[in-house]
C-alpha cells in the first residue's frame, strides 16, 4: 500500500483524523511557547547544525575517540554493520548470560533493526517499558510517532487494552488510573528483568559517555537493577564534547514536547560497580547516507519529532500511514534514501508547505531534501501526463494547440466523462470551467485595438 492509501484509511475512521490533528497541534503549540520563551533559540539551532555537520564530517575519528574513552571506563564497545549483526550481537550477549527477561526503553534503532521479534522468536521476553511503547506492544502494532508512540489511540482504547492485559476494571479510561496500573505492572518487570536495553540520545566522544533522556525514568529503572546494560547507538548520535550537551539538551525537549528538559537525563560513563555496560555502534546504511550530499543533512536528526507535530499530512493521516520505522517528514527522507523502491511514495506524502524545515531544531532543510528525493524516486503515477503537459508548454504554438484541444474537450465531452477522467480531483472538488475568453485572446484583442 502507498502512503496515500493508508492515510485515506486513517482519515476514513470516524472521529480519528480531526482528533489526531488537534492532539498533535497542541503539542506543536507547546513547542511554540517554549521557543518563544527562549530568545537565544536561533543561536542554538545554528550551533546545533554546525556541531552535527562537523561531527559527521569527522565521524571516523570521533568514533575511535568514543570507543577508546568508553573502553577506558570499562564499557565494551561493539560494532554492527547492519541490523542483522546488531541483533546477533545483542542475542549473543543475552544468551551468554542466560538472560530470559529484558526491560527495554525507547529506541527507534532497535525498532529499525526489528530487535523485539528477533529476540522473542528465540525465547527471550522483551518488555517495552516506555508507557507509549508498552501500549503499542500489547496491541501488537508499531509506534506511530517517535516520541509519542500511542498518540493515535484514544483513552477508551487504552482502557480496553489494559482491562484485557493488566486487569484494570472494564470501562476504566481515566489516564491517572491507567498509568497507576501500568506503574504497578512495569515496576514488577523492572524488578525481575535480567538485562536492560536502551537507546542512546547522545554519545560523547570526549568522555566515552552516553546520555539517555526520558520522562518516565524507565531507562534508568531498566539499567540500575540488572547486571547487564546494552545500549544500542546509531553512529550518527555522536557529539564531540560533554559541553555540547548544553546546546542539544536545551533544544531537544522544547522541540519535542515544550518542556525545558525531560524529567530524567542520565549520563552513563562506564558500568555500575559489579555490572556490565555494552554499547553497540550501528551503521545499517548510515555511512552510505553520509556519502550523499543530497540527503546527508538528515543524519543530523536528534529525534525530537517536531517535524511530525507540525506536518499537516502527518496530523491528518497518522504515523502508521508511512509504513516505516520513522514516519513524518524526517522519515520521508531517511527511509526512501535507504530503500527507494519500498518507500517510493513517501517523498510525495508531502504538500510542500515547508513548515517542517521551520521547526527542525538542528536546521535540517527538510523541504529541500524531500524535493531531491522526488527527483530520485523515479516515475510516479501521472508522470506521463505531466511530461506531456510540459512538452506542450515548450512553445507558444504548442501551448495554443494544447489549450485549444482542452477547451474543445470541455465543451464537447459529457461532464460525467470529464469528471471520471479527472477522478483524483473531482471526487471532492468541482472542476474549474475554462473561461469564455482566455487572457491571451483578450490581450490580443486589446493589442489589435491599439
Amino acid at each position, binding site marked *: 500500500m502507498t502512503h496515500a492509501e493508508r492515510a485515506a484509511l486513517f482519515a476514513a475512521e470516524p472521529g480519528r483524523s480531526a482528533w489526531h490533528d488537534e*492532539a498533535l497541534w497542541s503539542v506543536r503549540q507547546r513547542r511554540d511557547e517554549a521557543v518563544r520563551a527562549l530568545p537565544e533559540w536561533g543561536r542554538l539551532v545554528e550551533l546545533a547544525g554546525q556541531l552535527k555537520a562537523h561531527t559527521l564530517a569527522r565521524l571516523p575519528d570521533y568514533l575511535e575517540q568514543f570507543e577508546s574513552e568508553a573502553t577506558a571506563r570499562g564499557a565494551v564497545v561493539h560494532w554492527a554493520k547492519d541490523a542483522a549483526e546488531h541483533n546477533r550481537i545483542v542475542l549473543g550477549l543475552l544468551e551468554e548470560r542466560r538472560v530470559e527477561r529484558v526491560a527495554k526503553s525507547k529506541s527507534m534503532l532497535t525498532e529499525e533493526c526489528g530487535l523485539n521479534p528477533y529476540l522473542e522468536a528465540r525465547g527471550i521476553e522483551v518488555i517495552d517499558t516506555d*508507557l507509549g511503547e508498552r501500549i503499542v506492544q500489547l496491541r501488537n502494532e508499531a509506534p506511530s510517532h517517535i516520541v509519542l508512540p500511542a498518540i493515535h489511540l484514544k483513552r477508551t482504547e487504552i482502557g480496553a487494552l489494559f482491562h484485557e492485559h493488566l486487569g484494570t476494571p472494564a470501562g476504566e479510561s481515566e489516564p491517572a488510573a491507567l498509568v497507576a496500573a501500568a506503574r504497578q505492572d512495569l515496576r514488577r518487570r523492572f524488578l525481575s528483568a535480567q538485562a536492560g536495553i536502551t537507546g542512546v540520545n547522545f554519545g560523547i566522544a570526549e568522555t566515552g559517555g552516553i546520555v539517555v533522556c526520558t520522562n518516565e525514568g524507565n531507562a534508568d529503572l531498566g539499567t540500575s537493577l540488572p547486571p547487564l546494560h546494552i545500549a544500542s547507538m546509531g553512529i550518527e548520535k555522536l557529539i564531540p564534547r560533554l559541553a555540547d550537551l548544553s546546546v542539544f539538551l536545551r533544544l531537544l525537549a522544547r522541540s519535542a514536547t515544550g518542556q525545558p528538559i525531560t524529567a530524567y537525563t542520565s549520563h552513563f*560513563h562506564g558500568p555500575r560497580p559489579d555490572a556490565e555496560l555494552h554499547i553497540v555502534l550501528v551503521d545499517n546504511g548510515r555511512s552510505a547516507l553520509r556519502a550523499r550530499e543530497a540527503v546527508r543533512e538528515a543524519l543530523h536528526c536528534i529525534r525530537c519529532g517536531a517535524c511530525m507535530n507540525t506536518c499537516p499530512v502527518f496530523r491528518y493521516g497518522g504515523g502508521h500511514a508511512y509504513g516505516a520505522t520513522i514516519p513524518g517528514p524526517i522519515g520521508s527522507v531517511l527511509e526512501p534514501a535507504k530503500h527507494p523502491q519500498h518507500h517510493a511514495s513517501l517523498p510525495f506524502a508531502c504538500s510542500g508547505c515547508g513548515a517542517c524545515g521551520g521547526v527542525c531544531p538542528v536546521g535540517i532543510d527538510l523541504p529541500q531534501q524531500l524535493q531531491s528525493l522526488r527527483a530520485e524516486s523515479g516515475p510516479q503515477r501521472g508522470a506521463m501526463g505531466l511530461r506531456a503537459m510540459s512538452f506542450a508548454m515548450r512553445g507558444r504554438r504548442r501551448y495554443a494547440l494544447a489549450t485549444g484541444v482542452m477547451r474543445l474537450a470541455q465543451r464537447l465531452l459529457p461532464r460525467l466523462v470529464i469528471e471520471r477522467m479527472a477522478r483524483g480531483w473531482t471526487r471532492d472538488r468541482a472542476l474549474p470551467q475554462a473561461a469564455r475568453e482566455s487572457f491571451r485572446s483578450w490581450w490580443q484583442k486589446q493589442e489589435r485595438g491599439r
Partner: protein
Amino acid sequence: MSRESILAALRQSEPPDPGLPEIEGRWQHFDDRATRFAAALEGAGGRCIRVPARPRIAAELQGLEAFRQARRRASVVDGLGDPNVSLGDLDDPRRLADVGFALLPGSLAVAESGAVWVDASDYLHRAVLFLPEHLGLVVRVPDLVDTLHQAYERIRFEGVGFGCFLAGPSKTADIEQALVIGAHGARSVTVFLVGRS
C-alpha cells in the same frame, strides 16, 4: 571485521567540515535564580522549599506527608533524612523498591528548567534515584546556575561515573496527552533550596 569496514566506509567520503564551534552566545540570565528555579520546578511537577540553613530541613521534612508516611527511608545526605535503610549494607538494589522516601544531595541546580544534578558516581546503588516512591533533593543557593551552559562548565567525568539531571517527578503524557505525575519512578520530588539569594 565490522569495525574496520565501517571506519573504512566512512573514510571513503569527506563531507564538508564547518569546524568545531565554540559554545558561546547571549544566554538567558535570571536576576532572581531561586524564584525562577522554583517556578520551573513547579512547572515540571515538583516543589521547591526554601530554607535559610541545612538544619531547618529536618523540620520541613516532617511537614511532608510523603516523608511522614514513609515506613522505610533512605538518605545520602549526612545527618538528615532520618534513614532506617542502610544503603551501604544493601546487597540488592531491588530492595529499594519499598523505600517510601529518599533524600539525596544535588551538586547543582538549573534555573531555566528546575533540574537538579545528582552525581551518583560513588553510589553503590544508583537505583536510589529511581526506585523510591518519593524523593527529596538538597541544593545550596550558590550552586544554582542560569542554564545548562553554566552547568556543564562545572560537570566533569574524569573516570567511571554516573550523573543525572532530575527535573521533577516521573511523569508521562502518553495517554491522550493527559499529563500524569508519577509514572514508574518517584511520584513526587521536593527540592530543599538552602541559603539566602
